[in-house]
């Protein structure tokens, strides 16, 4: 009973949900009259959601001490990469018909596409080295390499902000969603700074300690 992998199964169900919904909505003609853009945007957002979830694992562990979340990080990261890949394929294939000249032009001149491409190219080596084989072989370097997910997360937010019509610094336009996701990602990164981490786990221990004292007193 203790070993029933419900958390693992849950992660995989959630992992396929965005794609299943996309296929369902496609069949039901529910992707607006501009389905290519809708697909592209939904896949991009799905990639971001899973990336944020992967980034949340360590803070959640620090905060709750719940160890069984830790092994779920790899699947979350890989789902992020999966949706980012589909997002990119949609961009290159459906949106730009694999017109290499035009794609190359966008990838080198348009800041938000540059940001997306940069974030994606940071995710590629992480996905490639996600197998146990590399974890064992690369030892310390594996951890170092996988810290690339931090800049990747921040760059994705920049990509998101720039993909919308608005101006984040003046807080004008279509900025609310990118802003909230940006704050979440920054918050998740801050919780990794040793001082913040210590403070959080100290907080947890004092709460747990108090609760223990309470249950004692009640007995």
């Amino acid at each position, binding site marked *: 009973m203790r070993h029933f992998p419900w958390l693992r199964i849950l992660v995989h169900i959630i992992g396929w949900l965005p794609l299943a919904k996309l296929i369902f909505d*496609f069949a039901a*003609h529910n992707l*607006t*009259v*501009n*389905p*290519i*853009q809708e697909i592209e945007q939904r896949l991009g957002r799905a990639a971001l959601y899973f990336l944020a979830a992967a980034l949340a694992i360590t803070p959640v562990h620090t905060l709750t001490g719940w160890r069984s979340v830790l092994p779920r990080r790899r699947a979350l990261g890989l789902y992020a990469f999966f949706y980012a890949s589909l997002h990119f*394929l949609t961009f290159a*294939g*459906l*949106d*730009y*018909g*694999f*017109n*290499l000249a*035009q794609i190359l*032009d*966008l990838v080198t001149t*348009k*800041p*938000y*596409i540059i940001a997306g491409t940069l974030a994606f190219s940071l995710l590629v080596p992480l996905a490639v080295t996600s197998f146990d084989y590399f974890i064992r072989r690369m030892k310390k370097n594996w951890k170092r390499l996988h810290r690339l997910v931090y800049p990747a997360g921040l760059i994705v937010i920049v990509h998101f902000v*720039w*993909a919308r*019509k*608005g*101006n984040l610094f*003046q*807080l*004008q*336009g*279509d*900025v*609310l969603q990118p802003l909230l996701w940006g704050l979440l990602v920054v918050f998740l990164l801050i919780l990794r700074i040793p001082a913040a981490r210590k403070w959080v786990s100290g907080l947890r221990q004092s709460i747990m300690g108090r609760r223990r004292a309470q249950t004692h007193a009640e007995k």
Partner: protein
Amino acid sequence: MEQKLKHVDIPSSEITPESLYLSRRDWLKVMGIVSAGALLAACAPKLSGITATGSGSSPETQGAPVPDNAHGQTADEFGNPLNTFDEIANYNNYYEFSTAKDAVASLAADFKSTPWAVEVDGLVQNPRTWSLDELLRFEQKERVYRLRCVEAWSMVIPWTGFQLSDLLAEAAPMASAKYVEFTTLMDEEQMPGVGSRFYPWPYTEGLRLDEAMHRLTILATGLYGKPLPNQDGAPLRLVVPWKYGFKSIKAIVRIRLTEERPQTFWNTIAPDEYGFYSNVNPEVDHPRWSQATERRIGELSRRDTLMFNGYGGEVAGLYAGMDLSINY
């Protein structure tokens, strides 16, 4: 009452076999996406199939002048078929209701567009308030126009409306009037988006007086021979077909003539991205994305964007001697 009568004049059945397009284009869309999926898998170098028809090779290509009255027309002057009523009525950038284009139609369903009054004032000899019925007495014409959104999608739309110049002639601009400012209704009760503090409500737009007087500039009151749907800017919206769609302001309550260039909504939000002129121009990119191509709603491949959205033959003269990369 009068509004109804006017619109009955033009049975929608005569404008286009709307239902015919719907089924054929829907089918194309599905087939297109399915085959694109197959191509994706096969890593084909380029999507073939439905591509830019009639857009010509060079962006300067311009079609025949737009007919004054497009009664019964099923395509624009290049031969591009009309978008369906459903497409036009379910994909709306109308931030007063929602930033989600497919959510506007339902949120605007109960919008009250009658009675309606438009104030025409500022530097005019005859300032006054016009009711919608009065405005519908101006000669209503059908115009098939391409609408090119700054977000790089486009549609072909059969509008009904009258030339803004007709109204301005009645208002009689003073010699000092140089610009026309338009304002959208701002009603927090009816328009949930207006509550958002991220935008400089109310929505305003502006034109130079000569642009406003141009024959192609219309105030639309209907589409597909029916009264304008709420989500498309009922009861009265501007349509300036050679400019990006956001210039074509919806649900107008005020038209004011000014000497100074008016403050406009998107230009206030991001002046380096949305210029006052905002003429469709494939050579001047949005700072963040390309304006060289566009997706026609209902088509799979992108098509080349045309200078002045294909209306250069009639409007390029308005900008003679101006550097359009500075006056974007």
